[in-house]
C-alpha cells in the first residue's frame, strides 16, 4: 500500500538577504494511510516548513532543493498547476494555528464552508445541505444558526471547528494540522482534540500533526518524529518515544517539563544548555553535539546516520547511552524562601468593571486573596477569567471600582501608581507575559535597568553601575548584553532582561503574568529555575499567572482558581490539585493532555464562557457545571465551603460530594 505522505531526503532552503539558508536537511519520513504522525520540536526547528512543503505551499523565498515529496505515491514536485490544484482540492487539507485568521471575516460561515463544495463541483442546490452536514459532523450543535454567523461572532473553539469542517469536507487523504490548539484554552483545546480524534477514526484520514506540546502529541499520534535544527533526529511509536527516548534531545525535552510531584523545593528543572543553531549554520558532526552531555570527539566530527532499527530510528552515535544522562537536574534545590505567615498583600472585595449601563462588563467581582511573605500564589483560569485585570489592579495600572480594598504591608494602597508612595510602587512589580511587548525596542538593556534603579531606588553614579552589574549577573546576562537592544536578543534572553528589570527595585511582591508562555520548553525550564532561585535569595512573594498547570504546580505554594472574575477556589497547591476541589477546578485539571496518553474520563465542560456583561444568576459557573443542582445553583449564590489548611471554595455541593482527582495531574510518567 502506498503511503499517504512520504518525504524522501527532503531539503528546503529559504533565500534570506541573498543567501540560501538550509532550513530542512535530509528529512525522510512516511505516514501510512490512516496513521497519525506527530512532529515535535522547538520553534525554529522547521516544523511549519515541513507542513508547508507537504502542500507545496512554501513562502515565495523558500524552495525544495533536495529530495522528493510523495503524496499518495505522486511526486508533488512534478505536478502541473492543474494537478496541484486538484491535489489541494481533494487530497490534502491544512488546519492552521489561528482559526481567526484562517477564516474570511467578511463571509458568513455558511457561504465560506460552501466554497469547498463549489470547488469540488457539487451542484449549487446541494451546498446548504452538505454544509449543514459537515458542520454537524464537527459537533456544532446548531449548524443552521452557525451558518448565518460571521467568524468574529464565534468563539475560538467554534472557529477552529469550522476550519476543521472545511478541511475535512473534501474527505482528504492527508490532513496537516499546524499547532491546531496552541491558541486555545485548555478546556477548549481538550474538546477540539477530542473532535480530531473522533473524526480520525471515522474518516481514516492520515494526519500530520505538528505541535511543540509533547503531551498533545502523546495524546493524538501513533508515531512521533522529533525535529531538531531541520533534521529528523528521532522517530518511534508514541509510547516508545516517551518511555524510552533514544536521542539526547528527545530525552532533554521530556525532562525539561515540570512533572507532578516535583516542586521548586524538591529539585531544579533540567535544562538543555546552549542554543539552537541558526538556519544555514555550517555544522560538522552531530547537530546537537554542542548542547549534548554525551558528546565526545566522534560526535563533534562525524555526523551520525539516522539509524533505523526495528520500527524506530535515532540520529545519534550512542542511542544506548541515553540512560547515562541525568534524569533531573543535578543542581540541588535552592533553599526555600522563608515562608512565614505574615501577610504582605491583602485584597478584599476587589471589583473592576468597564463601560456602563447594559454594556457594563463586570470583569472582577468581589475578589479576595491574601499573599504571605515569601510564598507563591498560583492564579489559574481560562482566558477571560480576569487574571490579568486582577494583576493590573494590584499594580495600580487600573483603578479598581469603589469599595475595593487593597492593602500592602498593612497600609492601604491607592488605586493608581501616581497616588501610591514610591516605596509601594517599587515593592509591587511585574514580569509581563510577552517580552517583545514589555521591552522598549528602541532602548538598550542598560537604559531599561538604569532608569528603573534611578527612579525607584534612587541610586546614582557608581552605586547604580554596581547594582546594574549585580542584577545582570543574577539573571545570567553578560556585560555585552547590556548594550544590546531587544531585537538582538533571543526570546529567553529578553525574558531574563524583563526579570532583571522587575527585580531592579527590590520588590516584595512580584506578579509573573504567564512568564514562560512565549518561550520554548527548554528555555522555560531555565526561566522557572531562575525565578525559584531569585525568590529564595531575595525573599520575594510571587503571584504566578499561568494557563500551564505544570508550571503553576512547580512554583506555587498556594493556588487560586478564577472564573468569570470571581475566585472559585483558593488553597494549598497540593490540596487544590488532589481535591476535593471545585467542579471547575476538576474540569480544568482533567482537560490537560497527559504525556503518557492515558485516557481517563474527562470532566467535559459544555457551552461557551458567558459574557461578563450578562453574568449568570446564582453560581457563575452553573451554565457549564456538570454537577449543577437545578433550582439551587442557578438561583442562589454558592456558600463558602471551608476545608482544612485554609482551603476555601465556593460551591453548593457538600464537602464530601466534591470531586477529587483520581489521578495525578499533570501525570507522573516514569522517566527513562
Amino acid at each position: 500500500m502506498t503511503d499517504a505522505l512520504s518525504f524522501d531526503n527532503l531539503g528546503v532552503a529559504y533565500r534570506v538577504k541573498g543567501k540560501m539558508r538550509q532550513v530542512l536537511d535530509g528529512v525522510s519520513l512516511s505516514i501510512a494511510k490512516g496513521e497519525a504522525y506527530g512532529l515535535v520540536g522547538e520553534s525554529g526547528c522547521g516544523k511549519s516548513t515541513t507542513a508547508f512543503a507537504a502542500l507545496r505551499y512554501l513562502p515565495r523565498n523558500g524552495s525544495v532543493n533536495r529530495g522528493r515529496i510523495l503524496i499518495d505515491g505522486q511526486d508533488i514536485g512534478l505536478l502541473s498547476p492543474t494537478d496541484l490544484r486538484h491535489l489541494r482540492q481533494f487530497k490534502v487539507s491544512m488546519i492552521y494555528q489561528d482559526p481567526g485568521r484562517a477564516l474570511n471575516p467578511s463571509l458568513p460561515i455558511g457561504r465560506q464552508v460552501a466554497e469547498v463544495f463549489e470547488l469540488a463541483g457539487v451542484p449549487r442546490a446541494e451546498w446548504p445541505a452538505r454544509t449543514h452536514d459537515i458542520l454537524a459532523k464537527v459537533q456544532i450543535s446548531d449548524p443552521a444558526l452557525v451558518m448565518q454567523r460571521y467568524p468574529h461572532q464565534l468563539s475560538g473553539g467554534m472557529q477552529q471547528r469550522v476550519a476543521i469542517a472545511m478541511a475535512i469536507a473534501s474527505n482528504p487523504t492527508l490532513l496537516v494540522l499546524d499547532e491546531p490548539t496552541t491558541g486555545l484554552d485548555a478546556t477548549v483545546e481538550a474538546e477540539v482534540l477530542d473532535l480530531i480524534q473522533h473524526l480520525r477514526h471515522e474518516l481514516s484520514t492520515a494526519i500530520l500533526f505538528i505541535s511543540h506540546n509533547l503531551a498533545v502529541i502523546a495524546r493524538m499520534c501513533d508515531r512521533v518524529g522529533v525535529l531538531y535544527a531541520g533534521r529528523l533526529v528521532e522517530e518511534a511509536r508514541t509510547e516508545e518515544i516517551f518511555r524510552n527516548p533514544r536521542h539526547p534531545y528527545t530525552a532533554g525535552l521530556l525532562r525539561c517539563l515540570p512533572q507532578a510531584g516535583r516542586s521548586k523545593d524538591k529539585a531544579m528543572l533540567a535544562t538543555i544548555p546552549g542554543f539552537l543553531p541558526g538556519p544555514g549554520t555550517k555544522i560538522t558532526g552531530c547537530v546537537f553535539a554542542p548542547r549534548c552531555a554525551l558528546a565526545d570527539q566522534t560526535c563533534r566530527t562525524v555526523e551520525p546516520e539516522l539509524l533505523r532499527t526495528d520500527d524506530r530510528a535515532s540520529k545519534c552515535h550512542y542511542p544506548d547511552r541515553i540512560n547515562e544522562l541525568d534524569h533531573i537536574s543535578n543542581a540541588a534545590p535552592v533553599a526555600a524562601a522563608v515562608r512565614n505567615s505574615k501577610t504582605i498583600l491583602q485584597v478584599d472585595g476587589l471589583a473592576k468593571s468597564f463601560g456602563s449601563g447594559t454594556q457594563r462588563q463586570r470583569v472582577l467581582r468581589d475578589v479576595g486573596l491574601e499573599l504571605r511573605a515569601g510564598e507563591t500564589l498560583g492564579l489559574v483560569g481560562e482566558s477571560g477569567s480576569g487574571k490579568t485585570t486582577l494583576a493590573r489592579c494590584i499594580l495600580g495600572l487600573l483603578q479598581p471600582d469603589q469599595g475595593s480594598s487593597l492593602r500592602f504591608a498593612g497600609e492601604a494602597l491607592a488605586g493608581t501608581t501616581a497616588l501610591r508612595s514610591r516605596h509601594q510602587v517599587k515593592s509591587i512589580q511585574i514580569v509581563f507575559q510577552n517580552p517583545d511587548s514589555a521591552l522598549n525596542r528602541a532602548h538598550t538593556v542598560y537604559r531599561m535597568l538604569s532608569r528603573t534603579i534611578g527612579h525607584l531606588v534612587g541610586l546614582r553614579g557608581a552605586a547604580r553601575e554596581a547594582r546594574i552589574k549585580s542584577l545582570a549577573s543574577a539573571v545570567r546576562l553578560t556585560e555585552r548584553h547590556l548594550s544590546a537592544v531587544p531585537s538582538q536578543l533571543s526570546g529567553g534572553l529578553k525574558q531574563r532582561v524583563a526579570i532583571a528589570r522587575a527585580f531592579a527595585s527590590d520588590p516584595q511582591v512580584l506578579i509573573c503574568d504567564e512568564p514562560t508562555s512565549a518561550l520554548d520548553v527548554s528555555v522555560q525550564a531555565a526561566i522557572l529555575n531562575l525565578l525559584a532561585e531569585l525568590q529564595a535569595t531575595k525573599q520575594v512573594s510571587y503571584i504566578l499567572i499561568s494557563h500551564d498547570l505544570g508550571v503553576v504546580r512547580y512554583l506555587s505554594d498556594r493556588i487560586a482558581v478564577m472564573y468569570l472574575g470571581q475566585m472559585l477556589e483558593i488553597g494549598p497547591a497540593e490540596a487544590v490539585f488532589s481535591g476535593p476541589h471545585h467542579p471547575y477546578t476538576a474540569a480544568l485539571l482533567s482537560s490537560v493532555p497527559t504525556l503518557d496518553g492515558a485516557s481517563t474520563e474527562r470532566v467535559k465542560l459544555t457551552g461557551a464562557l458567558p459574557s461578563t456583561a450578562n453574568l449568570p444568576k446564582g453560581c457563575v459557573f452553573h451554565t457549564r457545571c456538570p454537577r449543577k443542582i437545578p433550582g439551587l445553583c442557578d438561583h442562589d449564590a454558592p456558600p463558602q465551603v471551608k476545608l482544612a489548611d485554609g482551603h476555601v471554595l465556593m460551591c453548593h455541593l457538600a464537602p464530601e460530594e466534591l470531586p477529587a482527582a483520581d489521578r495525578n495531574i499533570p501525570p507522573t510518567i516514569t522517566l527513562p
Partner: protein
Amino acid sequence: MTDLPTPVEAAAPEHGWRDDLRRLRGSVSFVVGAVIVLFWVGCAVFGQSLVPFDPFADDLMNSLMPPSSEHWFGTDQLGRDVFSRVIVGARDILTVAPIATLLSTILGTALGLTMGYFGGLIDEVSSRLVDAVLALPTVIVALLALTALGTSTFTVLVVIAFSFAPIIARTVRSAVLSEVSLDYVAAAELRRENTLYILFIEILPNVMPPILVETTVRLGYAIFTVATLSFIGFGIQPPSPDWGLSISANYGLIGGGFWWAVLFDCLAIASLVVGINLVADGMESTLND
C-alpha cells in the same frame, strides 16, 4: 544553580538606523527619488555660483529667445536666461517648504502623541478639531490669512504648518494607539516616569518610521502649496526666480508660442514633487515592515 549556561548569542543582527539606511539603499524608488531631490538641493545651495548667466540680469535686446546653444532653455520677456532662473529658482521653495513641513511635523507629532496617549475626552475633542481643520481647503485658508495679516514668507510658513499639522497628528495618533497597549508603557508607568519622558523618550522612537514617511509625503504637498501661492501672488515675492512666480509671470505667453518660459519651471516643480514622493514610497515599503 550550575546547569544554567551563560547565554551566548550568535552574531547579533544589525539594527538601528544604519540597518535601515542599508535597506533603503536597496529600494529602487528611494534611490531614484533621492538622486532627483539631491540634485535640486544642490541647485538651491550652489546654483547661484554655477549658472552661466545672472538670473536677475535683464537683456531686453534678447527677450523671448527660443532655446539655443547659448541660452539652453531660452530667455524670458526681460531677456533673462531661463536655465539659470530654473536652477536658482529651487532656492526659495526649498527653504520655505521644508521649514513649513518641519514645523507641521513638530506640531502634529506633539498633538498626535497627546491624543493617542491620553485618549478619552482629550482625544475626542482634538480629533473633532482636527477633522474641522482638515475640512478647510489649505489654499483658501492661506489666502484669508495672507490677506488679513499681509503677505510675508513667515505667514506662508505658519499657514502651511497649521494646515498640515492635523494630518500628521492623525498618523501619529494611530501609531501611538498601538504602542500604548504594549507593556513597555505600563512598565514605564510602574517606575513612575513622567508623562513627557513616556511620550518623547519611550514612545516617540518607536513611531518614527510612520512619522518620517508622512513628513516626506507632506513635503511634496508643501512644495505644491508654496508654488500655488506664489503663482497667485501670495507666496514668494518678486524678484525671486521662484518657479511658481515665473510661471505666473509668463503663462500668458504660451498662446504666443513662447512655451519655454513656462515649461521648464513646470517640469522643475513636477520632478521635485515626484522625487520626494519616490523617496516617501521607498521609505514606506522599507521602514514599515
